[in-house]
């Protein structure tokens, strides 16, 4: 078990800065997810923690040690890769025991540790098979088993579920949660999928272009996004953004308005917003309802029926489009006019520089 601390971590690839100074503290036993769009540097960051990439600048601490210059095996970490990275010519048993074989451990110890990992992952019956005889989910289980056998302080996962089909992904997600609860180990998990991040994490780190955008619990990020990027990235369907103008500011509220939404009084104090500023209001599709105090009027252009809910794309007078998540059996059709309302206390406000107000 170990805490992990990144301080001023940077990574350059030949002059190009990919990771631009990252500070993150991960508590002992915490499940932390790095999430962000493809190419934002999540894997690079994780691989620096693992010791597979050099750290260009900054300090990395695992447990109580600065590990910048330690080889991977001495960092008390284990890693699970998207491509499984299990050895194709070895049986599952040999794969699980690989680290022990390398270290010349006695057979009894190997058998005991392999048996324990196999029990935890419920794959005792697969031990004598070869990877080619396993399904994708089973292969990833072997990779996780190999990590468990190492008894690391920190588990590192790089998109471990991305090669699995959707249904299996949901199952494995739950298993990983359970594994974390059982082992109580520190886990760092990289994904581009915000649903995985939301469901698994104690703490989410949102990255974009090599910069940490926000760190917080899933609900903090959902309800109080720090900027437009986080607001747009977390939550599905994506948050709706509309251009509005500040019409009034007082001690307890900010009033914004536009032709599309009329007037909206946001019950929050803000010193930085000034009357006349162009700002952006963010409304989650699930916070929009049909009818209500305020009137956002538009024409339905697309309806997606998911059963439990109905997603409607609505084009407003100004041409901006928003998505509303409405009840599953609501009676809407493309071409129809819709009057929507949002909940002012749940809307977000972003200043011209993208930061939440």
């Amino acid at each position, binding site marked *: 078990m170990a805490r992990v601390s990144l301080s001023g971590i940077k990574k350059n690839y030949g002059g190009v800065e990919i990771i631009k100074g990252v500070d993150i503290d991960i508590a002992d036993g915490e499940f932390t997810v790095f999430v962000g769009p493809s190419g934002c540097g999540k894997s690079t960051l994780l691989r620096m923690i693992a010791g597979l990439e050099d750290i260009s600048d900054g300090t990395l601490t695992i447990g109580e040690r600065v590990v910048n210059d330690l*080889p*991977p095996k001495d960092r008390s970490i284990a890693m699970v890769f998207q*491509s499984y*990275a299990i050895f194709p010519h070895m049986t599952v048993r040999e794969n699980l025991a*690989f680290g022990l074989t390398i270290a010349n451990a006695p057979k009894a110890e190997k058998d005991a540790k392999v048996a324990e990992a196999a029990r935890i992952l419920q794959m005792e019956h697969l031990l004598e098979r070869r990877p080619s005889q396993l399904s994708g989910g089973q292969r990833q289980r072997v990779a996780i088993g190999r990590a468990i056998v*190492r008894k690391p302080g920190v588990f590192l996962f790089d998109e471990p579920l991305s090669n699995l089909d959707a249904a299996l992904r949901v199952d494995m997600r739950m298993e990983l949660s359970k594994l974390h609860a059982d082992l109580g180990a520190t886990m760092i998990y990289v994904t581009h999928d915000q649903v995985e991040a939301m469901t698994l994490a104690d703490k989410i780190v949102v990255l974009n272009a090599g910069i940490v955008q926000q760190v917080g619990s899933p609900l903090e990020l959902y309800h109080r996004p720090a900027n437009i990027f986080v607001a747009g990235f977390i939550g599905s369907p994506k948050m709706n953004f509309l251009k509005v103008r500040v019409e009034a500011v007082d001690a307890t509220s900010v009033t914004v308005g536009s032709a599309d939404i009329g007037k909206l009084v946001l019950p929050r104090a803000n010193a930085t917003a000034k009357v006349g500023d162009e700002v952006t209001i963010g409304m989650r599709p699930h916070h929009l309802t049909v009818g209500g105090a305020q009137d956002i009027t538009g024409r339905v252009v697309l309806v997606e029926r998911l059963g439990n809910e109905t997603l409607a794309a609505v084009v407003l007078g100004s041409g901006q489009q928003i998505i509303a998540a409405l009840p599953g059996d609501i009676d809407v059709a493309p071409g129809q006019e819709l009057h929507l309302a949002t909940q002012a206390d749940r809307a977000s406000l972003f200043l011209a520089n993208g930061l939440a107000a």
Partner: protein
Amino acid sequence: MASKFTRSNRVGWSMAGPAAVLMAIFVVLPFIFAIGLSFTNQRLISPNPTQFVGLANYEQLLGVGVLTLEPERDAAGAAVRDDAGALAYPSLRSFTRNNDQYPQYDGMREWFSFDIGENRVFVLGRDIVFLKALINTVIFVLIVAPVQGGLALGLALLINQKLRGINLFRAIYFMPVVVSIVVVSLLWRFIYDGNSGLLNNLLGAATFGAFPRIDWLGNPGTALGSIIAMSIWQAVGFHMVIWLSGLQTISPTLYEAAAIEGASPWQTFRYVTWPGLRNTAVLVLIVITMQAFSLFSQIDVMTGGGPLDSTQTIVFQAVERGYGKQDISGGSTISVVLFVIVLSISFIQRWLTREKT
């Protein structure tokens, strides 16, 4: 399980067609001719009609016998010794020429002999030159296959790194492959020259003149070895490239997984690299073996089979017989024997290196 796509693939056949036709005309057809001719007494140019001779050519080529002779004894039954103490044996010719008691030895000559107690065992052959060629070729293969394969693998491992200028080394190692073997052989004839050859000069300089000058190609003890060394050097780059392509099919994440488990360089090679090269190894081994069995150009340019038949090889003999001596049926017989040898060895190699499940 042949899919429709593999069963009737007209496009595929039309693409393979031209090559297949050329192969049929210039490889398959001549080979069928060779098999046919090996059962006749056909000569390249001859006024006499061709006759079917059955297996006579094969008997002539492969006929061997073992003859154990007791030393000459005096009236008391004691072995006769000459002044130097050497035993005297009856003349071999009295057994192999017109001796009705030993028709099986008729026409044979001594290949080699050894002593058991006072008796001397003569191994006789009908075609001593061919038998020498056979042995030389086998020696050549037994040395070249492992040494060239191993060296090529070593080079490939060295070359397979991300270093500045590594492509230059790739090009340098590959260069001898691109140069015609005839040119290479001519160059090496100068290198091996007995008087002012580069090798003699180098060895002389390195040992301050203590190393005696050797006529590398003119000495029966060194000629074959010299040709072996040069042949290994010449084609090692080719096999390096094959190994290299094999190395590059191994997923980098497997190496990363091994690094995290703490594998040493040797363990990484043993558990990751070598198992990943299994198919490449089979290919390299079979290709080297087949190339080595067809050793010809070097011999033709450098030694012409001499000195004292010490560099005779199977293919050189086939050409020498068929065209030099115009004994086309004899040459064909040698070709067929070579074909059978190479085919059997390929099967044995495939069987030995088969995937064990």
